[in-house]
């Protein structure tokens, strides 16, 4: 993060060139996560066919699946029934070669439901919590499979608006999601089962893809998720993530004093407000208003026409710097001073 180390904002200073491309990397990361969620159930079905030694008994489409998965995995394994167990799970909880990672909300929900601390499980959330303390809501922007669908949905909504169809874009209080988190944990505690998982899209999507591919079909979670998509489309842009998501609320709280933040370089900002328009979480980058909700998605960095967004390492947001168009004045003054220095040099 050398963008923060340098004296950002000096004339001629640009953010590190890669930051502009982070948004593309982010889309790639979201796509890879989603593709894995689709691939893993197929791999599981393939494993069960292998374990059953049942190739001759498979129907033609099942054979197609078997052959495709064999083609994909043959370079990596001789024993798919055992070796493919290395990667299992989804974004709610997953296993990578024995390393188990879980969503912090899963730990919260389980602690509430069981009213005990179960240490082997709590260890699985340490790495995600550490990353959240450093990077804030990065999970929401970079890994969540629902984010991929919600952002595509938001682009779809933009097309509809462009086509002249009037969609709702209401604003609610961002603190509602903290109430949802608290209510979810209280209900989990009262009922003794982890209910927050039923209203948390990243948990729902991994499961539902698995149900759809490997089991009979989609379950109740799909209905809930489609409801949130419609809410986003018709009522409030990215409304679920902004106002309702219990996991987003927990990540926001954990990332309140995150170290890696986005900061505006006031001297080059020209007040065009593209960052505010592109911000999926409805934040206010143009006036240095990021807060605990920013997920470091870097969309504002990517769209900024004057390269006025960069990263800093700081536990709180950069204090408000005033309007960016003042940057013209700074730059004119600095240019005049440089010019004076040059002319002085020539005179001497």
């Amino acid at each position: 993060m050398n963008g923060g180390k340098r004296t950002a904002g000096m004339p001629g200073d640009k953010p590190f060139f890669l930051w502009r491309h982070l948004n593309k990397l982010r889309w790639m990361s979201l796509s890879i996560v989603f593709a894995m969620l689709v691939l893993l159930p197929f791999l599981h079905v393939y494993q069960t066919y292998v374990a059953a030694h049942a190739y001759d008994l498979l129907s033609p489409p099942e054979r197609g699946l078997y052959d495709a998965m064999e083609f994909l995995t043959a370079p990596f394994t001789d024993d798919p029934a055992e070796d493919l167990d290395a990667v299992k799970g989804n974004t709610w909880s997953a296993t990578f070669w024995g390393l188990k990672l879980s969503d912090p909300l899963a730990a919260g929900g389980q602690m509430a439901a069981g009213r005990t601390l179960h240490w082997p499980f709590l260890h699985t959330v340490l790495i995600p919590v550490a990353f959240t303390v450093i990077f804030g809501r990065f999970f929401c922007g970079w890994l969540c499979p629902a984010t991929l669908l919600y952002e595509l949905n938001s682009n779809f909504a933009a097309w509809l608006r462009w086509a002249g169809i009037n969609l709702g874009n209401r604003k609610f209080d961002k603190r509602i999601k903290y109430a949802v988190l608290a209510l979810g944990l209280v209900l989990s505690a009262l009922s003794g089962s982890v209910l927050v998982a039923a209203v948390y899209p990243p948990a729902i999507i991994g499961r539902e893809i698995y149900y759809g591919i490997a089991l009979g079909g989609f379950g109740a979670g799909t209905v809930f998720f489609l409801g949130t998509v419609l809410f986003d489309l018709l009522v409030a842009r990215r409304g679920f993530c902004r106002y309702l998501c219990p996991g987003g609320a927990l990540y926001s709280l954990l990332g309140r004093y995150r170290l890696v933040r986005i900061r505006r370089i006031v001297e080059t900002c020209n007040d065009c407000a593209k960052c505010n328009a592109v911000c999926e979480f409805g934040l206010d980058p143009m006036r240095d208003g990021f807060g605990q909700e920013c997920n470091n998605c870097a969309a504002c960095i990517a769209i900024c026409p004057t390269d006025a967004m960069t990263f800093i390492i700081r536990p709180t947001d950069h204090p408000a710097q005033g309007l960016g168009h003042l940057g013209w004045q700074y730059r004119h003054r600095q240019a005049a001073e440089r010019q004076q220095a040059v002319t002085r040099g020539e005179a001497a």
Partner: protein
Amino acid sequence: MDRRTFLSALGAAAVAALAALTPQAARSAWSRRSLRYLRPPGPFPEKEFLSRCINCGQCGEACPNRCIKFFSLENGWGSIDTPYIIPREKGCILCMKCGDVCPTGAIKPTAREAQAILDGVKMGHARVDESLCLSYQGKTCGVCYRACPLPDVAIYVGRLEQPHVTDKCVGCGLCERSCIQLPQAIRIIPNLG
């Protein structure tokens, strides 16, 4: 009264109406218990299992036998998205891969050895209906005994291959799955605690 106030009043009324349902109705919506199902192989009775399971679905993904399925709302709100096994459809082969992959210990990690499984797994207990069992009707059968992964420990046969289930039965359900009678003469009574 504008539309928003009206709608929020309507919502509040709906919540109040739901809360005013009889406790009996609420309880049955919460947990219907109309199905006879097993939880994946672990030691915990239903209540403790529910408080530990985070509904991640990894046990199902690890199961090579595809016997683990997941509830939608069939069993009430309390067990939404939790894993279950219907032993008549497909029994558990006690490979214990789900225990390895379970992050929360709802399914305890258990070695794939007879003693570890006998100590650490209690999904239920098999019970023979002697009026249905072929062997008790004089037609030698013994299929359940041959299907049992723990023969002579969990189940032994007497005269005419009549099955006798011992206390050590872990409730995997393979006997119920294999029973050739319709309806089945041996059933797993789930460990609901």
